[in-house]
């Protein structure tokens, strides 16, 4: 974590296994406000599995998670996921139009505000999505469009931490730049992200620092 910044996400001594096989052992990562951190490591090292654990979709084998000092048990799991929000590598589509997909999560019990439609329309344009996409059935979107809709959905929910698993893998250079700029703005406003990318140049260009999934903050 950068000196002088407030800690937002703390991953303490977290071990992750897939089946019998240990993937990540005793990892420590601490991310501060305004930080974009790249998570690096070879394929199969457990980067995506770690993101699922941090998002609370799977249990760690050992270790502790905290967001702004509170554990998932203290916040409640649905609220934790809302605050530490995962955008999976393969974005899924909910039933209905793109608008329905964006508004859906504002109907959950843990939601606090109304769907910010004007902000959503603004982000559609900023992410280089065609304006006609708004009413389109989400299941008919291309992979790249779906990836941006997933990011847009996450942005509208304003989590404390974004967990982004290959967020630009299906995007062209223009759309990739738009995503990077938007996340930079979010970081400027105090947000932070842990990002898995296989592109070292992108990690270098976009992120404040990178951590190795097998070493963590000791690297």
């Amino acid at each position, binding site marked *: 974590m950068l000196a002088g910044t407030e800690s937002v996400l703390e991953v303490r001594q977290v071990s992750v296994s897939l089946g019998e096989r240990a993937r990540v052992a005793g990892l420590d990562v601490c991310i501060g406000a305004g930080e974009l951190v790249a998570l690096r490591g070879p394929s199969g090292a457990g980067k995506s599995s770690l993101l699922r654990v941090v998002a609370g979709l*799977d249990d760690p084998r050992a270790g502790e998670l905290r967001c702004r000092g509170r554990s998932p048990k203290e916040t409640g799991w649905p609220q934790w996921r809302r605050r530490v929000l*995962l955008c999976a590598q393969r974005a899924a589509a909910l039933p209905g139009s793109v608008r329905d997909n964006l508004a*859906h999560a504002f109907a959950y019990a843990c939601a606090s505000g109304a769907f910010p439609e004007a902000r959503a329309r603004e982000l559609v344009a900023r992410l280089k999505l065609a304006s006609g996409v708004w009413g389109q059935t989400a299941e008919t979107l291309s992979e790249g469009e779906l990836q941006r809709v997933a990011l847009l959905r996450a942005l509208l929910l304003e989590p404390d931490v974004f967990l982004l698993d290959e967020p630009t893998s299906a995007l062209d250079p223009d759309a990739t730049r738009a995503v990077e700029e938007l996340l930079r703005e979010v970081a400027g406003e105090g947000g932070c992200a842990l990002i898995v990318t296989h592109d070292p140049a992108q990690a270098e260009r976009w992120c404040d620092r990178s951590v190795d999934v097998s070493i963590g903050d000791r690297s």
Partner: protein
Amino acid sequence: MTETIAGALPLGPAQLALAALLVVLAGAISMALQLGLERRLGIAAFRSVVQLLLVGYVLRYVFELESVTAVLGVALLMVATASRESVRRATRGVRGVSFDAFLTLLASSLLTTVLVTSVVVQVDPWYQPQYLVPLLGMALGNGLTGLSLCLDHLLESLDTRRAVIELELTLGATRWEAARAPLSAAVKRGIIPIVNSMSVAGVVSLPGMMTGQILAGADPVEAVKYQVVVMFLIAGATSLGCTLLAVLVFRRLFNDRHQLRWERIAR
């Protein structure tokens, strides 16, 4: 209820053998069309004769005993067999689901049947096997079909729609919010057959119990009244059963950390 006028004409072995000729006809058709079903048809026909005869003798014995323990013993055996069959018919499974199906059928079919015999038909004593056993049989026969359809649909959608369910969870949905659509679709799938059969009862088909009573010489209008009670019993038991089973399976597949444990689904 009015007394039945007379019993059905008794059937002797020769008449049963004559009826068996129809199965032989089915076998001949299978051979002629090379369907390869002759062996299975023969075994199934033989099994049905043996099973029904055994049931006939057991029921006669239980009817004569007039003991609540014996009637409940038969009822529990029926529930256990039906629950095993409902789980076996589903293409996917979850560890412990047989127990869930047993509990579900016990709570839905047995309880609703006892309610019908004691409160609706007002049989005295409530466990009179002549009423309890056939009514339970019908509630279970239809209930197990509903349960297996419900279970199959629920496990299939939780398995194949995992990405969407986990997406909802990542967005802050509770496990109930994330599973609401698959749960209601599964319960609906289980209930639809009884709704359909109620809609066409008497128009397309004469239901089994009514047919049996008419054959046994009962007044058709009285037979209809019983059939109506049976249909409502099946509708109640199946709806309750599907809902209960869906909730029990849901609790096996989602933990209190609101995580979907899809690896527990056996394919």
